[in-house]
């Protein structure tokens, strides 16, 4: 049976985990490293590098290296205009279209970049299962986590990334909820938990009630644009003044120094960045506004759950940024209790994803996750106002419906605009879908009754169906996401990724063939130039033989630069054959010379 895994696709790092003998474990590389940096780089010869190698390339080839791409998931070109300048890579795409990331002469959508990371995790897991001697080590299904506050477009983009990577995404689950599953394993307790998740790029707060093994999310809130990245930017701004070299590579080197300084300041009272001293007090003053921005969503989540901070039984910390002492103090202040941090905050989400994946494939009913939709779903009505159909914090799966009719006689189509968000006006919410409801039977105005049904599934992803109630005509609606990929685009990307995988493989084979040819050429030329050759040339090597060697050598040199691997290999073999006799003679000479205890030159 093929394998199923849980994946934490993070802004900064990604991990893969699975259940082994009932316990979730993170899959690590030979060095014991569980983290795959969420970095993808395309080198000059179009080879794709992922993870640590790509991260190293940030220091040598920053313009061809993409990081923090999670921030671009499900976004349009306009959404990222302000942010784009912070990144060394090219941010492109047409207005009103999905944002594109340019690396070298290739352009990728964010789901494609994420797919490279997912494929790396998939390979890591497959190698791990192969090592364990599993019969079927293919990994083709996964549960992938997203920030709880991700909207429909961002969730859909994540699911698309999975499909492009050749993974069936069984379920998208929310990161804080996944973390609570991991914590819930060894404790059969009940109570109300707050999960505070401050990661590289996103912040989430979820309030859950745990009872009889049911993890019921009461409310969730957050900010999909708040995390360690923002702290890095502040620190960068502070130390950039003393930096003369502003090349992308130098900036990246500084960025890595900044990241190291954050780690240092969680352990010590002061450190240096690029020779500049910074104390923990200065650091805390600098980042206080960022930490403060997490408090509002916490209060809102508490209010939505109808709870006071004192009613929270336990607080769990998730995400690398919760290692910062100031963050811990603020959380403790708000909830009035010391937060849990027994599990590694970088790994706990992936562990929870593995638990959920196991529940799905085994049908084990001991635990059940009941999550909510983070944002209200509505449609545009008269005057650019949003009419809400499914309210935020509704447990999913959830449905909602709305009745539409026509404004003029014999009207056969109605425009529908679906939005997500809490604000009154259309312009202040996230546009999810715009579509035309067609096929309404011609009738006097106001007579048709078209019921549009919205379904949010257990992954928090929306689907829409419509029915004309007077004629019972069912309509399957062609829904084109405002900032997403169509099914056809995802299919094409999946195929392309295979083709590129093949192209990458072919490129590697060609390089290997050239390397081999070059080493044979070098060896041959060295022999022909050697003093030994001069001494045997007249006695043991015929003129024809020498001519043959020289012509094949010239031939191989000519085809060496071609891209035809087979021709290169054919000529390499020919040269090997042509020089075989020469090699034997030379070998014998040196052996006998060695036996005679004499230097070859003396013979």
């Amino acid at each position, binding site marked *: 049976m093929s394998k199923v895994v849980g994946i934490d696709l993070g802004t900064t790092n990604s991990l893969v985990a699975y259940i082994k003998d009932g316990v979730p474990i993170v899959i690590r590389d030979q060095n014991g490293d569980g983290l795959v940096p969420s970095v993808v780089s395309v080198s000059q010869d179009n080879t794709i590098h992922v993870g640590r190698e790509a991260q190293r390339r940030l220091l040598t080839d920053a313009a061809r290296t993409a990081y923090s791409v999670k921030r671009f998931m499900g976004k349009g070109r306009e959404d990222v205009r302000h942010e784009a300048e912070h990144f060394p890579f090219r941010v492109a795409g047409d207005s009103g279209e999905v944002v594109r990331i340019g690396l070298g002469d290739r352009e990728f959508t964010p789901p494609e970049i994420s797919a490279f990371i997912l494929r790396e995790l998939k390979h890591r897991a497959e190698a791990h299962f192969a090592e364990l001697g599993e019969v079927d080590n293919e990994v083709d299904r996964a549960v992938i986590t997203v920030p709880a506050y991700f909207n429909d477009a961002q969730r859909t983009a994540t699911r698309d990334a999975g499909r492009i990577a050749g993974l069936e995404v069984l379920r998208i689950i929310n990161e804080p909820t996944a973390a609570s599953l991991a914590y819930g394993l060894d404790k059969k307790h009940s109570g109300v938990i707050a999960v505070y998740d401050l990661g590289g790029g996103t912040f989430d707060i979820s309030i859950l009630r745990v009872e*009889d093994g049911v993890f019921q999310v009461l409310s969730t809130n957050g900010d999909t644009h708040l995390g360690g990245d923002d702290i890095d930017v502040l620190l960068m701004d502070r130390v950039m003044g003393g930096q003369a070299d502003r090349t992308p590579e130098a900036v990246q080197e500084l960025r890595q120094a900044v990241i190291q300084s954050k780690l240092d300041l969680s352990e010590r009272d002061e450190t240096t960045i690029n020779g500049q001293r910074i104390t923990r007090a200065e650091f805390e003053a600098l980042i206080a506004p960022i930490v403060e921005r997490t408090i509002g969503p916490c209060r809102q989540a508490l209010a939505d759950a109808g709870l006071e901070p004192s009613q929270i039984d336990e607080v769990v910390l998730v995400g690398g940024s919760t290692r910062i002492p100031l963050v811990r103090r603020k959380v403790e202040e708000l909830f009035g209790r010391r937060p849990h941090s027994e599990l590694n905050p970088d790994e706990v989400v992936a562990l929870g994803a593995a638990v959920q994946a196991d*529940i799905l494939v085994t049908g084990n009913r001991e635990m059940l996750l009941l999550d909510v939709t983070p944002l209200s779903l509505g449609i545009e009505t008269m005057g650019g106002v949003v009419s809400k159909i499914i309210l935020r914090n509704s447990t999913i*799966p959830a*449905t909602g419906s709305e009745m539409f009719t026509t404004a003029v006689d014999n009207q056969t189509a109605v425009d529908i605009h679906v939005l997500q968000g809490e604000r*009154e006006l259309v312009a202040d919410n996230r546009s999810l879908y715009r579509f035309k409801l067609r096929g309404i039977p011609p009738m006097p105005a106001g007579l048709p009754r078209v019921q549009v049904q919205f379904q949010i599934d*257990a992954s928090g992803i929306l689907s829409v169906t419509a029915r004309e109630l007077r004629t019972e005509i069912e309509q399957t609606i062609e829904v084109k996401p405002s900032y997403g990929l169509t099914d056809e685009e995802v299919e094409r990307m999946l195929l392309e990724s295979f083709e590129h995988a093949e192209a990458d493989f072919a490129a590697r084979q060609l390089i290997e063939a050239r390397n081999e040819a070059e080493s044979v050429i070098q060896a041959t030329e060295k022999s022909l130039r050697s003093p030994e050759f001069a001494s045997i040339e007249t006695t043991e090597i015929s003129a024809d033989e020498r001519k043959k060697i020289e012509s094949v050598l010239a031939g191989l040199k000519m085809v060496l630069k071609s891209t035809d691997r087979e021709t290169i290999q054919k000529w390499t073999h020919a040269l090997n054959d042509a020089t075989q006799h020469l090699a034997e003679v030379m070998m014998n000479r040196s052996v006998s010379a060695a036996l005679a205890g004499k230097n070859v030159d003396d013979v």
Partner: protein
Amino acid sequence: MADFEQRYRALSRQFHPDYFYNAAPAERRASLEKSSYLNDAYRTLRNPISRVDYLLKLEGLAPQGPEQASKQVPAGLLEEVFALNEELDEVREQRSSGAPAEIWKGRLERARQPIEAKRAEHEAQLRELSARWDATGDRKVLEALRDRIIERNYIINLLAGIERELAASLS
């Protein structure tokens, strides 16, 4: 209430799509539909206001759309409605004559307070009446509930009106 929550959890365990991943497509669809229905029901019944709305619909007492609602605005609210509309008109005038945002934002905030208080008062009444209906099943109580709901809808509309002005002031 504890019983309500417990039954909800038990039914969730029965229908949730998590447990039908390996099932036939028809069963998977049924699980999605049933658990959606369960969640929608849970949400409706847990919130006191939506629960009353649903009760009124069940008993054939649901308010008949906005026309009836506007006809039935009680005198006590009418006064507040007129006062607020006047205030909103003045705010719009101030804004179009270029007054600084803080001034009319402050007016809007002040206008909101008494209406918020009214809403809280109404919600207390609704809770009290709901408890009485649950205990007695007296239809008169249900009719009183309906009147409170209509008033409440009106109050919510007033608050939304202020909200819209505030939103417009931001843009």
